[in-house]
């Protein structure tokens, strides 16, 4: 089962829950995937043995100066303005390129081949608890993360449990992260921000037809509108984790929450059994 841990707003506790669930489900058949590739932090909370490391590339055009007639056709058809052809010079802006290959297919001189532009890295590690973690780390300055997110998810498709730590927001990176998952666990907080962003992430999950459930983190005796948002969307509130300043402090120090606060084990078990129930 592939569970996406998402939630719209940043800092609601996505990584905390992804780490706890992976620890709770720890076995060689469990994998934690950190696809918050702009800020991959889940790995910081585990003891691990580093495994393979791989650079992920995306295709971009390479112009062969000898064949190029500087006709400017490629610049004219590029919808993303990634190519500028001047009489003396060819300029290519990889950060604008969407890797669509239109220039490669349509160049009248056959002067374009496809080269590779680094997107970021994928790193795998074996955790002390027996599970594995696969993290994507976007190259700083690279604007397009979905390709790397897809590459991380592609690495492991056999695991009986895959926990996917997703990026915040509801734009294309978040959609790429939850795509193909069996369940979307949305972590939120009982504030107006939490409620507002939860509404948007529920729309995103619905758009892809993925069943969703809500967890309220830092709960203080009142759902503060989260219940209304969940009810309106027809999704259940699976759990409420009360605000614990000592948990926040321990998490700041990089301690594994489930090992420091064994009581959380019961809560994770409850979330998993509820997801199982929902899926039937």
């Amino acid at each position, binding site marked *: 089962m592939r569970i996406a841990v998402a939630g719209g707003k940043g800092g609601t506790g996505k990584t905390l829950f992804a780490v706890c669930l992976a620890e709770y489900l720890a076995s060689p058949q469990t994998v934690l995937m950190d696809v918050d590739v702009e800020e991959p932090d889940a790995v910081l909370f585990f003891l691990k043995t580093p495994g393979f490391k791989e650079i992920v590339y995306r295709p971009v055009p390479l112009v062969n100066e000898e064949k190029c007639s500087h006709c400017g056709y490629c610049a004219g*058809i590029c*919808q993303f303005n990634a190519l500028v052809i001047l009489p003396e010079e060819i300029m290519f802006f990889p950060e604008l390129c969407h890797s669509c*290959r239109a220039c490669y297919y349509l160049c009248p001189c056959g002067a374009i081949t496809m080269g590779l532009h680094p997107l970021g890295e994928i790193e795998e590690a074996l955790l002390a608890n027996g599970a594995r973690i696969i993290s994507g780390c976007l190259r700083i300055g690279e604007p397009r*993360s979905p390709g790397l997110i897809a590459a991380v998810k592609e690495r492991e498709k056999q695991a009986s449990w895959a926990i996917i730590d997703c990026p915040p927001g509801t734009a294309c990176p*978040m959609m790429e992260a939850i795509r193909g998952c069996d369940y979307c666990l949305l972590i939120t907080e009982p504030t107006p921000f939490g409620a507002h962003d939860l509404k948007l992430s529920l729309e995103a999950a619905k758009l892809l037809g993925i069943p969703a459930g809500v967890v309220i983190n830092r709960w203080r005796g009142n759902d503060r509108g989260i219940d209304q948002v969940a009810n309106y969307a027809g999704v259940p509130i699976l759990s409420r984790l009360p605000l614990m300043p000592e948990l926040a402090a321990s998490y700041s120090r990089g301690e594994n929450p489930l090992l420091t606060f064994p009581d959380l084990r019961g809560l994770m078990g409850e979330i998993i059994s509820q997801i199982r129930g929902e899926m039937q």
Partner: protein
Amino acid sequence: MREILVLSGKGGAGKTSICSALISLAGSCLACDYDVDASNLPLLFELSQVQEHSYSGGQVAIIDSDSCILCGLCEQMCVYRAIQEGLVSQLACEGCALCRYICPVDAVRMEARSSGRWFRGQRPDGKPMVYAELRPGEENSGKLVAELKDQARQAALQENLSLVLSDGPAGLGCPVISALTAVDLVLMVAEPGVSGMEDLFRLYELVQKRPTRVALLINKHDLHALGSQRLQNWSREKEIPLLGKIPFSLEVADAIGSGQNPLEIDWFRTIMEDVLEGMQKALQSPIAIK
């Protein structure tokens, strides 16, 4: 005109709450929220006279089913796998127009896609705020941010405001890169925890790629005293002015959550006044060219 952008890399570090306090304190400024896929700053101001504008940041292929001969060429060539049996998935299509150029019977046309909306409203102090809403799952958040930046500058010129104060998006991806264009000062808000620090270092590396000034504000500094000390040492080493340290407190969050003005809390107001003063001072310094 000067623009100050609040960023943090990590989400939930307190950007929006801090930015709203700075906006209220500064008063005479244009407020802007670049977090186009989860816009929260407008929730903190009772905006009036909100005008809505639709925004199209790209295009989408449309296949005319009457002329399409279902030859399957476009389906084969589309790297986004956006076409199936002559139908285009709006979500997957990135608008590259390759299908339009290669279609043997000219059955494809490109249409502007609706990517979201942007808004301009008036804050209770009479000054404007601009913000936007990207449609869920849309591409082109960077382009919408660029549009918003244009609108913010136009509005500031109209209203004769010399300062734009902007709340940035989380992460380091395309909306952040776009928001960093022509910014005079980046206020980095950081938490001292292990993930907060990791994210700050990555953010700093990204910000360094642009000619701009930076300053640091530590939030929840007492959650991890050692980490906070490390952050202070780091800022000293990098010669980044540290403008303040905010303790972990539910008082501010509660005030904001229940619609009260957090600046009524004395200690918080004092810190924010120092930060505002520190930012004005930082703006006087020259931009280091790397």
